[in-house]
């Protein structure tokens, strides 16, 4: 009897401990969100914030439209660079994954994931900025692509590996060549999982500041020309938050909120895609 009571007590205590730890883990996230929303909302609620560009301190109606489009353009170009290579590379790792080369690719990707993003920025500065003697959105996109590539590669690999082997065998038994099986059967079956990886990579790239500091550099004016310096939301946060001017700091909070919202949105999308992938894989 008392033994049973002790067991129940420990069970309750353990459960309480787990709840407490979970709450502590969630606390920073909640605080960041709360802080960003309350501080960012005043700027983000104004229409000008989305349509105008930066203005000198004290002049009302400033906005971050140039940074918003800058983020979209650079992340877009980076996606075009990183996603095809990453997806095809991920397929290769699963379908032909035995030898030395795939092992090397995996190692390189894992190292790249852990590489400080500022180092990546510096590297791209050396190869894509310094030789041309000016900053450009293109070089920023290259830096972001370098950061996205390993994420896309590795998540594609795990999504492809989830596809039941039966589909692969059934395709080969129909006489398909291996590359056709990979592209026409395996990839569609893994599409939601691959999409998840791409979206996660996009979210990561959209939030990166360091690699843009000396590649895209930032720009106070609106431009869509990828050969010129371009602003991005994280750059606005970085520059404006450090100024002593109240309205610029408010802009920075607004940009931060916008960035968090974009990232959250992308993450939710990727979650939905992942759920579909799991349903597909389990349905076999």
């Amino acid at each position, binding site marked *: 009897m008392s033994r049973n009571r002790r067991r129940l007590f420990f069970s309750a205590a353990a459960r309480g401990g787990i709840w407490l730890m979970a709450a502590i883990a969630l606390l920073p996230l909640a605080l960041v969100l709360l802080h960003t929303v309350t501080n960012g909302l005043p700027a983000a609620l104004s229409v000008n914030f989305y349509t105008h560009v930066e203005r000198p301190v004290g002049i009302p109606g400033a906005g971050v439209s140039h940074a918003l489009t800058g983020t979209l353009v650079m992340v877009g170009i980076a996606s075009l660079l990183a996603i095809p290579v990453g997806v095809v590379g991920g397929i290769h790792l699963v379908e032909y994954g*035995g030898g030395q080369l795939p092992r090397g690719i995996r190692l390189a990707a894992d190292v790249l994931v852990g590489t400080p993003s500022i180092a990546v920025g510096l590297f791209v500065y050396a190869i894509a900025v310094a030789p041309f003697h000016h900053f450009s959105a293109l070089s920023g996109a290259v830096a972001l692509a370098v950061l996205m590539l390993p994420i896309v590669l590795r998540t594609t690999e795990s999504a492809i590996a989830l596809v*039941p082997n*039966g*589909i692969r*065998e*059934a*395709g*080969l*038994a*129909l*006489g*398909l*060549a291996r590359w*056709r099986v990979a592209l026409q*059967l395996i990839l*569609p*079956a893994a599409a939601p999982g691959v999409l998840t990886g791409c979206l996660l990579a996009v979210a990561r790239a959209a939030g990166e500041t360091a690699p843009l500091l000396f590649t895209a550099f930032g720009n106070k004016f609106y431009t869509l020309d990828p050969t010129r310096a371009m602003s991005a939301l994280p750059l606005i946060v970085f520059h404006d938050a450090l100024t002593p001017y109240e309205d610029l700091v408010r802009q920075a909070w607004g940009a931060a909120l916008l960035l968090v919202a974009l990232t959250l949105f992308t993450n939710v999308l990727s979650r939905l895609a992942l759920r579909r992938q799991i349903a*597909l894989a389990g*349905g*076999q």
Partner: protein
Amino acid sequence: MVARPQTGTPTAGSSTVSPHLTALEGAPQTLVSVEGVSFWYGKRQALNQLDLAIPHRRVTALIGPSGCGKSTLLRMLNRMYDLVPGSRTAGRILFGGEDILATRQLLELRQKIGMVFQKPSPFPMSIRDNVAFAPRLLGWGKKRINDAVERSLRDAALWDEVKDRLSASGTSLSGGQQQRLAIARAIAVGPEVILMDEPCSALDPMATLKIEDLMRRLVETYTIVIVTHNMQQAARVADHTAFMLMDPEHGYGELVEFGNTTDIFQKPKDPRTEAYITGRFG
């Protein structure tokens, strides 16, 4: 019922020719001729010196305990073992005058020798697209593809159940229906041989019965080779049965006895066959 096969007597050629290579009495001509075939997974030998004459338009069952290499033999018939790194073969498998083990025309080979697996694995696309997949690959015209889809689904006894929802996903079907879809998919391009690797082991008895009925009808058009763990199934559907066993000393699979199914089950010549079918081991 079926005449006793001549498996014990030496053939007209030389006495060194394996008895299993002679066409069974009462059986039509040999379609696939397995001659002195061995197989290695890396260093481990899985099959040793198999001879087997697979008759045209008959159901041939491969039975035997786990690990005897029956699936390996089946997968050699359409070169699925190519996927296994480090695999090695010896001997030859003649089909239409060509050695399956040596051919480089894998695409053509697999269109002539289709395969159905234990798990149906419908492709993540519609029922119609599942069946039309291989015909499209061959670049058939639209009309021909549509005809092939209907004919294959009819032949696979699935047409009446799915004709109103050909656009539904292949994964929405029940297990038994999925397996019949897999059969329809395999016969869409008109193969000569259908290999079945334990096609019913994941199905309930009713679905199994349907597949077995289907096999009896399919064999009017196709040659079927089936691997099964279920001896009753072999007894029900197979015209000819090959019993395989792992050599306890060397660890590789060997063919013990091949003959008409009734003989294998009622008057097996080898004591090991008798022991297996009476359930004393395996």
